[in-house]
């Protein structure tokens, strides 16, 4: 009576069901594959390496000297002088439209200079915010340009040799970070949301009423995730390489192993978040609470080393930080898998702890 010929293993059927459900969700496909690529394009263009921006200088004052000052600044490289009234200049500085104000003082009245020697150079006043890096840079540039125009000589010779290090552009930094974000988000949403939805719809309860092994159900999520993970990571790596020339300096195998471990770790976190809630709203809240700090703090978009020294150990203990560090090590610095071990340990620890806790807390109905 049992026609077992066409009956596949439950794990195969469950995994197929996962893949079908996900593959048939058009929105999910976009957010998993389209969105990260768009993000890479957008940020890659916005932050592409380019020459330093022109320094904008407001020139104020009266008298013939102002014309020569304008000319000297025009001739200098990377400086854009603007002739403004004093009031306009103050406003422009405040709103960041100019980086510095150069105030040309009128020549001293002849009467006050009884010797009547040759007129001294115009006295300048630089007005700028000494706390703004752009303004400080502008002062150096402007002063240098004006002094040189009047004949200042270097007292010591120095050579300038421009260097462009491989893997030092922002896009090189960004692509591994985007892979990290994507692996985290898709693992979390792909598993967490699906599990909570199945619980709310009583599908988990229905499955618990069959002889299905519960471990098969959870494993099917992992297997199906891994299929999509491979596609996601391959897409972003290939995209970064083809469009932006971001090369993987380490081995592709190391990238694969790190992605796999990272994904498993985030799946553990997802199962933990999804272990109990039966409303997708509540689950979304928890999911965001777990992910948002990592979006901001784990160095996906900018280096977490800009945060104070005292919080660095905490940031490094986050799974996404560990994942980003390991991936950047391999992609940007050509590190071997072995060299990334501290990050791998952090990922494994998160995975094991979350998974263990999730199994304890998991509610089938």
């Amino acid at each position, binding site marked *: *009576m*049992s*026609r*077992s010929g*066409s*009956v*596949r*293993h*439950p794990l*195969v*059927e*469950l995994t*197929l*069901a996962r893949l*079908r*459900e996900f593959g*048939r*969700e058009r929105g999910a496909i976009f957010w998993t594959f389209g969105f990260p690529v768009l993000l890479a394009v957008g940020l890659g263009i916005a932050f592409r390496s380019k020459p330093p921006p022109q320094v904008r200088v407001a020139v104020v004052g009266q008298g013939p000297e102002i014309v020569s000052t304008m000319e000297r600044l025009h001739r200098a490289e990377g400086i854009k002088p603007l002739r403004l009234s004093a009031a306009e200049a103050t406003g422009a500085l405040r709103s960041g439209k100019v980086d510095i104000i150069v105030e040309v003082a009128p020549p001293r009245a002849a009467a006050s200079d009884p010797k009547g020697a040759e007129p001294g150079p115009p006295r300048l006043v630089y007005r700028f915010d000494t706390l703004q890096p752009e303004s400080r840079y502008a002062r150096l540039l402007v002063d240098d340009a004006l002094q040189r125009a009047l004949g200042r000589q270097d007292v010591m010779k120095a050579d300038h040799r421009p260097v462009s290090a491989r893997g030092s552009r922002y896009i090189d930094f960004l692509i591994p970070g985007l892979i990290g974000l994507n692996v985290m988000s898709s693992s979390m949403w792909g598993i967490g949301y699906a599990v909570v939805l*199945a619980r709310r*719809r*009583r*599908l988990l*309860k*229905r499955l*618990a*009423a*069959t*002889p*299905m092994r519960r471990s098969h159900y959870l494993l099917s999520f992992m297997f199906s995730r891994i299929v999509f993970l491979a596609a996601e990571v391959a897409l972003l790596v290939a995209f970064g390489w083809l469009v932006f020339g971001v090369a993987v300096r380490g081995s592709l195998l190391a990238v694969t192993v790190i992605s796999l471990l990272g994904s498993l770790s985030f799946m553990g976190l997802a199962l933990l978040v999804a272990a109990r809630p039966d409303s997708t709203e509540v689950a979304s809240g928890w999911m965001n609470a777990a992910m948002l700090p990592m979006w901001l703090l784990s160095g996906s978009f900018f280096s977490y080393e800009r945060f104070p020294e005292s919080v660095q150990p905490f940031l490094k203990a986050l799974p996404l930080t560990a994942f980003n560090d390991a991936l950047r090590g391999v992609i940007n610095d050509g590190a071997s898998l072995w060299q990334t071990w501290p990050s791998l340990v952090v990922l494994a620890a998160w995975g094991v702890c979350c998974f263990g806790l999730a199994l304890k807390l998991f509610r089938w*109905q």
Partner: protein
Amino acid sequence: MTATATSSISAAHDPDAAAARCVGLVKHYDDVKAVDGLDLEVRRGECFGLLGPNGAGKTTTVEILEGLIRPDAGRVELLGRQWGGQKDQWLRERVGIQLQQTDLADKLTVEETVRLFRSFYPSGRSVADTLELLGLRAKRGARVHKLSGGQKQRLALACALVSEPELLFLDEPTTGLDPQARHRIWDVVETFGAGGGSVVLTTHYMEEAARLCDRVAIVDRGRIIAQGAPEALVAELDAEQIVQLRVDGELDAEALRDLPGVTHVEKNGGDLFRLGVASVGEALPAILGVIEAKSVALQTMTTKQPSLEDVFIHLTGRKLRDE
């Protein structure tokens, strides 16, 4: 099932054991006593109905029997076995379950869903036969979210029947369905019963219980208040007809109670009376006489065959469904 196929399990499998039996079942939810000392026994091959209003404890009882909820007290035995420990797998393979509400995965097709459930069982019906049995063959490629309510319910039944269970639990299988869809479900349940399967069914539809069930238990406030074959329960009312009348004006139930041919009187609400009547010929003129004598105005009067609904109203003074 052939003898050779069952010989290996028959040692541990008592064919004389009841399909389902429970004694002294109690289940609290916070302060609410959902099930309050409930006993029942479902015989092999019978269709047993749990009948009662919403919140009577039917679903809790069934889910305890299904091993999905742990009772606070009481004993449960299915096919001679109890839930808990290593035996669960054995029971799960022999019990088919349709929950009161399950939304199966929207994006899967009918066939994929049944195939998925089939893969959980070591033996059972083929997917094609199951779809045929439930009349879902034409819909096998349709996604679940495109199905009508009746088709969804048949799919849920397909998932329960694909394992060829010995015992089938159906929790309100036709609630919210139109009459035609309801009849299709009834046909499937009858086919299952004709094949020797045992069924435990909850419902608040009288026609459903009367048509499908060999025996019913009327459940109210977590207890069974009457039990027996549907016809026997109706016969216990001792009424040939039910007369229902609505009057405008003051009328006391006592005034109707001792009339010839009237077996019992219930006053529902202010002006609605339900009378069990042994002989319509005797009772009707007498009732009309009282109405005239008390000078109240008769608004409506109907007579009908008594049903399980009347049994329920008679026992509890309330209707099965809030309408």
